[in-house]
């Protein structure tokens, strides 16, 4: 293995000329390092440049600026058929005029592999995706999920350094999608091949990935493990895009080594003991963010810091959780409380207008750069 990184994008820019004639930066100075053997996802809303980034790694598009490295080597204008990278296309792009066997064998034939070897490797690849016995079918005689597996087998049979997957589960129904998520993840762990996975489904990205790059408008907003991305989003966009959050405007009042004090006008209070994030200075205007499930509602007065009094304005019961909407001072706050106990007893439920005490636990209350 050449180096630590399977794929590296260094300051990559891709400009398109739109049909209207203007220039559009589909990928805007993206730098990311994808480690060998990891399951790496690009996550972002529609049009943020995920597919374009993936296509540049595959070799279907060339960067306007910057350089892409695969296994430590700059790929420049190397055509796709000379890259040790394979793609699972969003629409699968199976060859309709070939059988399942022929589809999977295609890549090996192009390598000039011997007939016997092709047979063996195709059989193994089909077994891997549980399609043994379907060799002689045509793609149209398969269900969507089976076609998806053929697409995976066709790419994996080449034993690429990197497998690129562009929303490969987008066309499947929810149940099958969840099954395939686990299968793909297991396959990746078993083979140890680097997967670069594009999705706009955050749950999918969190479920499958070792690391995630959250993208927006052609730029990478944060790269990290699912836990890092969720628990320590590095800016408001990421906090908002992944999961849900309450946001308040605030101002840093004091900044110590590992603790900060932030004043929030809407709460008319100082929040103390907040974890410090890099790149922020004393006095800076920031956004305070707290996830709804991190807020605690307590019955009795405690000695906690960051304790507030709120009034219930609405409650929504959704089975696993109860969503409680509150007015706290001049702010609105939503709190998700898990239904650990049965809510059948009306006494266990909040009523509209009820006054409650809330704790914003400092370790889960973040202040982020405004953007």
């Amino acid at each position, binding site marked *: 293995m050449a180096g630590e990184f399977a794929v590296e994008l260094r300051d990559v820019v891709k400009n398109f000329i739109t049909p209207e004639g203007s220039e559009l930066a589909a990928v805007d100075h993206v730098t990311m390092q994808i480690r060998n053997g990891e399951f790496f996802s690009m996550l972002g809303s529609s049009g943020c440049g995920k597919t374009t980034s993936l296509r540049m790694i*595959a*070799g*279907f598009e060339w960067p306007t600026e910057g350089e892409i490295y695969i296994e430590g080597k700059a790929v420049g204008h190397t*055509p*796709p*058929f000379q890259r040790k*990278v*394979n*793609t699972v*296309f969003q*629409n699968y*792009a*199976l*060859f*309709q*005029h070939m059988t399942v066997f022929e589809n999977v064998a*295609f*890549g090996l034939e*192009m*390598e000039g592999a011997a007939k016997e070897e092709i047979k063996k490797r195709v059989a193994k690849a089909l077994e891997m995706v549980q399609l043994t016995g379907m060799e002689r*079918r*045509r793609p*149209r*005689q398969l269900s969507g999920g089976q076609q998806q597996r053929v697409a995976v087998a*066709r*790419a994996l049979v*080449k034993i690429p350094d990197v497998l690129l997957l562009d929303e490969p589960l987008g066309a499947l129904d929810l149940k099958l999608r969840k099954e395939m998520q686990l299968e793909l993840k297991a396959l990746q762990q078993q083979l140890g091949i680097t997967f670069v996975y594009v999705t706009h489904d955050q749950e999918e990205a969190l479920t499958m990935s070792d690391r995630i790059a959250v993208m927006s408008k052609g730029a990478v907003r944060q790269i990290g493990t699912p836990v890092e991305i969720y628990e320590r989003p590095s800016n408001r966009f990421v906090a908002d895009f992944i999961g849900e959050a309450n946001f308040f405007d605030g101002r840093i009042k004091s900044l110590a080594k590992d603790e900060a004090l932030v004043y929030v006008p809407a709460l008319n209070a100082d929040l103390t003991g907040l974890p410090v994030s890099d790149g922020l200075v004393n006095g800076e205007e920031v956004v305070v963010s707290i996830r709804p499930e991190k807020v605690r509602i307590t019955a009795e007065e405690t000695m906690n810091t960051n304790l507030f009094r709120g009034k219930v304005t609405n409650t929504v019961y959704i089975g696993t959780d109860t969503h409680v909407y509150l007015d706290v001072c001049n702010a609105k706050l939503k709190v998700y409380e898990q239904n650990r106990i049965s809510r059948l007893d009306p006494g266990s439920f909040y009523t509209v207008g009820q006054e409650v005490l809330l704790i914003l636990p400092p370790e889960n209350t973040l202040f982020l750069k405004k953007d």
Partner: protein
Amino acid sequence: MFQRLRENKSVQGTLLALPTMIWLSVLLILPLLLTLVISFGRRSPDGNVIFTFTLDNYIRLLGYHTNCAGGQARCFDPIYATILWRSLVLAFNTTVLVILLGYPLAYFIARAHPKKRNLYLFMVLIPLWTNFVIRVYAWMMLLRKEGGINIALGWFANLLGIPFQPLEMLYTPGAVLVGMVYEFLPFMILPIFTSLEKIDNSLYEAAADLGANAIRTFLRVTLPLSMPGVVAGTILVFIPVMGTFIVSDILGGRQVILVGNLIQRQYLDARDPTFGAAAALILMVMTLIVTYFYTRRFGFGEEIVAV
């Protein structure tokens, strides 16, 4: 009653097909039956049909003639078989040439930028706005001894200082072939273009991704997926070329007589509709046989459907 109509799919189908069925039976089946009946008849001295049942016309088509030079009752000269064979070979050659010329052009148009694509298609169709006969006459102007091609060649020869004899191109089998290829090229380009255009770009990318260069992508992906267009085009070209007489009439003169000319002359010049009818039926049967075996092998140019 309308309720039942709404529910009964097969009645609906029949109703929808009815206008076409009437059209076909009045304008296709009836004339065909009439032709069949006439072909068994005999020509009267003044060129009318005497309805009887005789196989004379078919025997004559096989090559056995009654008006023999040596005063024999019957003599053998396979002149009509030669004409049929010539037509078949010409139709085959035309089809092959039209594929060889039409495919690259269709490919070029299908891969062109969408904006230019319509322009190119338009250019393919423009000649069809001019009358068929006039287009063939235009070729006569070009191929004549003192026509455009000879003038251009002479000019070049003069420039290079080579002595030049105008070429005899008109009234040769080559001239007929050129005319046929020209006339029928659009009918090959359009179906091939249609099937090429339907190939999703991601298939080309998938092939490249799996290690195929441009040539292998073409041979393994593009060509097989565009075969339906080639098949449809072949049917659209081969059948009319087998029957047409205008091109050979104008560009072949008396030198290149095809079945089409034979039939036409029986009706108009020789005034023997019974023999013309027999020849027309033989042509039809032959075309049907060729088309039957061709479509058995390649289908009608529909999508490649899984077996």
